[in-house]
């Protein structure tokens, strides 16, 4: 069992005093949800879990320990590890302070899709063990239940890690023909449809900033959205201001976004807001051949330039 291995590693790390605390997931207070868990005591490691409902990107929590001395062990999925790698590149945390417990990820299950496909399901009826999903005792294919960002996952294995729990998976679902890429669905829309879709979605936004707060790479001391002098966007949740907030956020993520989809999963009104940064990440991959968070030492695409960059849009 992978969970036992994680608990064992966590136990050993705490017992030997190699780290001050472990950040992982524990069972949530609602079915099909998990909550982040910070254990400082060996006894708490029993509560750690690892399943396809571990939606939080735990790299987010590193920002709260910036500049400190504590050593941190962090459970990382593929995308979490990429986020850690970006934070390391941007000097937000020191590698010596981190112990990364890498978890090759089979994809996250969207609880809503699960309930649609299996009405009246209870948490006890869902079993997940070493990459195999069993629902009511029957083996099920996870691909129809995946979260949007996981349908376009390219790196299920953590590119940086100190421990690895489980087998490396190699390819993500992006190459698989079984899975429909979330972004393709929006790409197929006509521009008018897309515009209307976003206008409608933006009217529903309540500007709770959960998307920003869930993002592992949003660490500005003062966010432009809450700045009052100058005030970039109105703090009231007006549709156009909501859109501008998302555009500003997306531009901040350009060339950095690791496509973990944490922003979309955090949205309380279920706006698939992760498609904006993911669209930009895709256009950057196509245009500059750059993928964020792979620990290659390459300069971020917007921090460098080539003299022959495309400029046919400039008069």
């Amino acid at each position: 069992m992978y969970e036992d291995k994680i608990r064992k590693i966590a136990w050993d790390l705490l017992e030997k005093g190699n780290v001050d605390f472990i950040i992982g997931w524990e069972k949530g207070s609602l079915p099909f949800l998990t909550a982040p868990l910070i254990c400082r005591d060996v006894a708490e490691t029993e509560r750690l879990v690892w399943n396809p409902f571990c939606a939080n990107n735990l790299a987010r929590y590193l920002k709260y320990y910036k500049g400190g001395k504590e050593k941190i062990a962090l459970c990382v999925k593929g995308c979490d590890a990429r986020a850690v790698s970006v934070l390391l590149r941007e000097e937000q945390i020191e590698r010596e302070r981190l112990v990364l417990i890498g978890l090759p990820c089979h994809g996250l299950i969207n609880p809503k899709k699960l309930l649609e496909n299996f009405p009246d399901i209870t948490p006890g009826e869902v079993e997940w063990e070493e990459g195999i999903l069993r629902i009511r005792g029957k083996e099920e294919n996870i691909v129809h239940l995946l979260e949007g960002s996981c349908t376009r996952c390219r790196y299920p294995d953590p590119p940086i890690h100190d421990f690895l729990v489980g087998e490396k998976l190699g390819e993500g679902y992006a190459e698989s023909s079984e899975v429909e890429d979330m972004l393709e669905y929006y790409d197929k829309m006509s521009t008018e449809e897309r515009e209307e879709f976003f206008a409608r979605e933006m009217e529903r936004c309540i500007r709770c900033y959960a998307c920003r707060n869930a993002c592992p790479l949003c660490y500005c001391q003062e966010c432009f959205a809450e700045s009052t002098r100058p005030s970039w966007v109105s703090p009231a949740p007006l549709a156009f201001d909501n859109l501008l907030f998302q555009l500003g956020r997306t531009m901040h993520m350009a060339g950095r976004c690791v496509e973990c989809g944490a922003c979309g999963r955090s949205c309380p009104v279920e706006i698939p807001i992760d498609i904006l940064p993911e669209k930009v990440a895709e256009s950057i991959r196509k245009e500059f051949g750059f993928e964020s968070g792979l620990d290659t030492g390459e300069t971020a695409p917007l921090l460098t330039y080539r003299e022959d960059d495309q400029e046919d849009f400039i008069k």
Partner: protein
Amino acid sequence: MKTLDWEPKIVAFLCHWCSYAGADLAGVSRMQYPPNVRVIRVPCSGAINPLYIFKALREGADGVLVSGCHPGDCHYISGNYYARRKFMVMKNLLEWLGFEPERVQFSWVSASEGQKFSQVVEEVVESVRSLGPARKMIKEFSFDVRR
């Protein structure tokens, strides 16, 4: 909304070393160009944050013109190269979301190109005029929310 006496409002971000001087040259050479542009001088096109452009649109500009030095001529050596990448990413995103591409336009104008500056302004004003007042995702939707 669209009335006979409506005139497009264009906010122009001009870099201090080239385009702003180009606009100045157009002025002192008595070249005619539409008075619809409101010029904002910035140190360099690389200093333009996409938020400036969004803010201009939010405050009711019908179009935005961003202008800097030609590639290779930047006073700060490479500011406009960085700007070019940034604008490309931004423009692709805006177009994907259904913004009319004519609303946000870019140009390179050097200090000696007064003629080109007046031409660019004319083109921008005309293309925005033919689109009409900015309504998509701007006024229409912010009014919608208050209903």
